[in-house]
């Protein structure tokens, strides 16, 4: 990624131990319906924050807010230490170049093939074509899709599209990745492949990420597994261990009902949360 003002801000932020993403009393509504009400939380550097909650609870809206794609009605969102409110359009686009986003329905550019989709960000940065191709192949190998490099999105299955979307999000080595339901609507095997990719990205690159999922099973797999670099596969953390950098945020009816670690979530006394996780 090109060195920009944002890069130096991120380095300072990491050095100071400040959060990469902060929501401060954020509320938003559409056509009279409140979608998020007073949401406050923060995501530290290297943390994987899993966003749980029933469908229609405002999780995808929160994700778009985090990337500045929509603006909150009230409250403040700080990304890489800077308030989105204070940023100009140009600064917002610069900031987004440091964030990878995986959309719920992949949102691949249907007129571009896999290579051009994945290389989109690099083309925008005018990276040398030879280097672009090498990096595309490398990242497609990471998501195990190097054979599909010349295919168009219409020729891919749902799981393959999601993997291309992940490849597109990580190719520019972002400092923050936003996964909007990357396992949604996929069969368990494909879903597991996506989880493995997320765990691999977390444990290999230590990238900060915010991930939405509807399935508790997937969320707990993320919290209890790690990527083994020797065996090149995902495995359970021995002795019932838990990935400490993985934390949970649970939303219900637009409000934060839980913000804490995996252990805190599993030992919660809140009746609604107990019903939800059981």
């Amino acid at each position, binding site marked *: 990624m090109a060195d920009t003002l944002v890069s130096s801000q991120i380095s300072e932020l990491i050095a100071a131990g400040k959060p990469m993403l902060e929501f401060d009393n954020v509320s938003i509504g559409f056509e009279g319906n409140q979608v998020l009400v007073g949401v406050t939380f923060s995501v530290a550097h290297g943390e994987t924050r899993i966003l749980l909650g029933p469908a229609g609870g405002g999780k995808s809206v929160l994700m*778009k807010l985090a*990337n500045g*794609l929509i603006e909150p009605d009230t409250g403040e969102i700080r990304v890489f230490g800077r308030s989105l409110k204070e940023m100009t*359009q140009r600064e917002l*686009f*610069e900031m*987004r*170049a440091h*964030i990878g*986003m995986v*959309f*719920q*329905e992949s*949102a*691949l*550019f*249907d007129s571009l093939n896999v290579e051009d989709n994945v290389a*989109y*960000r690099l083309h*925008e940065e005018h990276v040398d074509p030879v280097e672009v191709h090498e990096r595309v192949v490398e990242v497609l190998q990471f998501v195990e899709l190097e054979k599909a490099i010349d295919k168009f999105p219409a020729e891919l299955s749902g799981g393959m599209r999601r993997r291309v979307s992940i490849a*597109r999000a990580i190719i520019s080595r972002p400092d923050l990745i936003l996964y909007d339901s990357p396992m949604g609507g996929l069969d368990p095997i494909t879903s597991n492949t996506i989880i493995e990719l997320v765990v691999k990205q977390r444990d290999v690159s230590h990238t900060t990420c915010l991930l939405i999922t509807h399935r508790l099973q997937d969320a707990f797999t993320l919290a209890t597994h790690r990527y083994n670099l020797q065996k090149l596969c995902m495995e359970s953390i021995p002795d019932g261990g838990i990935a400490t950098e993985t934390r949970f945020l649970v939303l219900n009816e637009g409000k934060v009902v839980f913000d804490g670690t995996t252990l805190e979530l599993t030992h919660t006394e809140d009746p609604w949360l107990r019903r939800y996780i059981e």
Partner: protein
Amino acid sequence: MRFISPEAYAKTLVAVVQDYSLLCGRAVANIFSHPRYIADTFTQMDSIGVGSLPIVVLTGFFTGCVLALQAAVSLKTFGAVNMTGELVTLSMVKELGPVLTGLMVSGRNASGMASELGSMKVTEQIDAMRALGTDPIRKLVTPRLVATVFMLFFLTIISDACGIAGGAFVSVTMLKLNGGNFFHTGYLSLVHGDIVEGLVKPLFSGFIIATIGCYYGLKTTGGTRGVGRSTTQAVVASSVLIILVDFLVTQLMIGIFGR
């Protein structure tokens, strides 16, 4: 059917005008700053300009043919059938060439832009583009705007030429008029102001086609049904605006050149 209050309707209308004005302002401002998507602009020039050539040539030619036929009937009454060339040339250059070309290109390209951008909007591709750090107005709207304004200018010239050729064809083959006389009277009838009027109009029409097509595309909501609705709205709005602006520009030109 649900009725809305006049107040709510007025507010919606003002919001639409505001959004459209902001889009136009940003699309134009992007021309003067980096990054510029030159390759996308050339692709759009090919798609909008070269792609529209057949319909513009055919429309221009047959309009000229019809104009010559109709003019001859009226002029015969006054014994002035020899002035057919003058009438066809003036009509094509000042009015029919620019307006018909604008309307044909609007039907083909405003709809194309609205449906393409609308499909991208409903499949979150526009959001993905923004999420990848690219300004969709800079990447999608500005190249279309530049390409449409530039190409419509030349398409209008081609249309004018084809219309005059069509008029000459009918005059010579069906009305048995002298071809040389047709072109000569046509040439003599044109003054500087007529040419300027005919060439200023496509600049406005091109701007309207691109900005209206992109505006409705980027505002699309409601899935594939919404794409269809945006496409229709884009063609209707751009066609009406082209004719409205044509009237205003004609008034202005009459004020400036006195004819």
